[in-house]
């Protein structure tokens, strides 16, 4: 270790940098391969060689009927995710606002929400399915699955809102109150617009988490499957590039959703920043 410390420092930078690049490749390569293989020729298998390039497998997905038709599950997943997202927005804003009121037992409440994140999906889903069986309730994607998924998306929205409320400028709120606005008016006209980017973030979280959720849905969905369930079922039946085509499509779909919302957030932040100056 007779090297000068500056040399050693740049050496660590190089090692860490290389490691980071290798890991990035490691993380992205399968995703790109999935995308590439989804364009395999009609005789292409599930790995290389691709036997030509075509849209064959996308056409297959589009044409599919009954057994491996992915359009209804996609529809259900999207609707479910939208519903979860909206519910999360409303409930998490209420809950975070309640935390600001430091009601009795808010410590327990916080841990209750945390439990929703910590408790693994397989246990929540399984337990809820048993409960429904005891109560004699029929399982369905738009009732039981919705209830279970919100218990997953809500805590994430709650933590997001909590962080937002911890950070926003409370003096603006105080000014409005001092000037005689009622609490409700102040919340509607001042607080809510200020925390809106956070609210959208919470909703985005909710949408994405619900859209991709598998273990919770698996036990509670009943006969009409959501998209992840349909994909898993197809994987069990037969592995063809068709699955890759679906995977690529839904990945693109969620990426577009994320990009749009990030852009909206950014635009909103910019507009509020301008107003402040």
């Amino acid at each position: 270790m007779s090297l000068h410390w500056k040399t050693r420092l740049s050496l660590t930078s190089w090692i860490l940098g290389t490691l980071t690049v290798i890991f990035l490749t490691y993380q992205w390569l399968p995703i790109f391969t999935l995308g590439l293989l989804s364009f395999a020729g009609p005789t292409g298998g599930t790995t290389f060689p691709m036997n030509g390039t075509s849209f064959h497998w996308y056409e297959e997905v589009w044409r599919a009927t009954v057994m491996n038709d992915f359009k209804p599950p996609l529809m259900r997943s999207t609707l479910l995710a939208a519903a979860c997202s909206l519910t999360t927005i409303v409930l998490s804003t209420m809950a975070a606002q309640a935390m600001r009121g430091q009601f009795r037992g808010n410590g327990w409440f916080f841990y209750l929400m945390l439990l929703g994140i910590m408790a693994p999906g397989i246990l929540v889903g399984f337990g809820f399915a048993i409960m429904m069986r005891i109560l004699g309730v029929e399982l369905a994607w738009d009732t039981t699955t919705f209830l279970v998924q919100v218990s997953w998306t809500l805590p994430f929205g709650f933590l997001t809102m909590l962080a937002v409320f911890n950070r926003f400028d409370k003096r603006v709120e105080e000014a409005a109150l001092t000037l005689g606005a009622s609490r409700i008016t102040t919340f509607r006209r001042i607080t809510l617009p200020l925390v809106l980017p956070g609210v959208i973030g919470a909703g985005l979280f909710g949408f994405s988490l619900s859209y991709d959720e598998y273990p919770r849905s698996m036990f509670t969905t009943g006969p009409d499957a959501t998209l992840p369930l349909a994909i898993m079922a197809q994987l069990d039946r037969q592995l063809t590039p068709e699955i890759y085509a679906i995977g690529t499509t839904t990945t693109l779909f969620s990426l577009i959703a994320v990009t749009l919302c990030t852009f909206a957030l950014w635009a909103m932040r910019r507009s509020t920043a301008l107003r402040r100056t």
Partner: protein
Amino acid sequence: MSTIRVRSAASYWLAVPAAAWMLGVVVVPIVLLAWVSLWGGRAFSTASPLTFDNYAKFFANQTYLKLALTTVGHTATLMAVTGVLGYCVAYFLTMKVRSPFWRLALFLAFIIPFWTSTLIRAIAWVPFLGVNGVINQTLMFVGATQSPIEAFLYSRTGITMAQVSLYTMMAAGPVVYMLNSIAPQLREAAMTLKATPLVVFWRIVFPLTLPGVVIGQVLVFLNVMSDFATVATIGGNKHALLSNLVLLFYEGSQIRAASVVAVLLMICMLIGVVIALRVVDIRRLGAER
């Protein structure tokens, strides 16, 4: 002064819907599982007598015990790998990358896969791992092996490889957050006082990021312990972990046995989380510093 009065009835009522939802959907079902795991008899009936027979049956079976040990070992391996790798990546991202453009680009490159389906990302590993998969094709092309290695798909190695790519960012995320919140003056002061970079790291930076490390490890621990989907996709039916056993019993209509495994899984996880919570105070994260 704020839009809500401290300890007001309003604040209490605002919290009720969320609390009721979480109690009804998360807490009650889990308590219910503990109850069902004690049911005797054979019929699905709430009038079943209570007994510990189901647990006795589980612990009498060597295969299941071995499976539980394998699960713990597998999880520990993943925690170690993702912990070290995640810390290196997090440290590089926050400490070594200076240009804002590259910072944002790298950050996005890491965060984007996180927004996509874990299921799809697990499936994406399948074309890589098979006997004719990309890894074997590459190895044979380079000349490292003559015949394809069968050790990847449907094996523990394959599962580990996929899970490392899935969960490293969970270990790295909280560390990035903690590293960002370290005041640069602290390091500068230590440097001025002639501490070597290694000493600065071990005595100042690492202790300050410890909460992030612990939270990351808890996330990886919880996710790997309950990740039956990746195991099923890549491991096939040959390799199961404890969480797959829940599914296996459930599909075989052995509700009691499934509940027993679920309860044991829950206990393992609770122990892990309690240990972690003794180290860090999660409630302080995200608060204004």
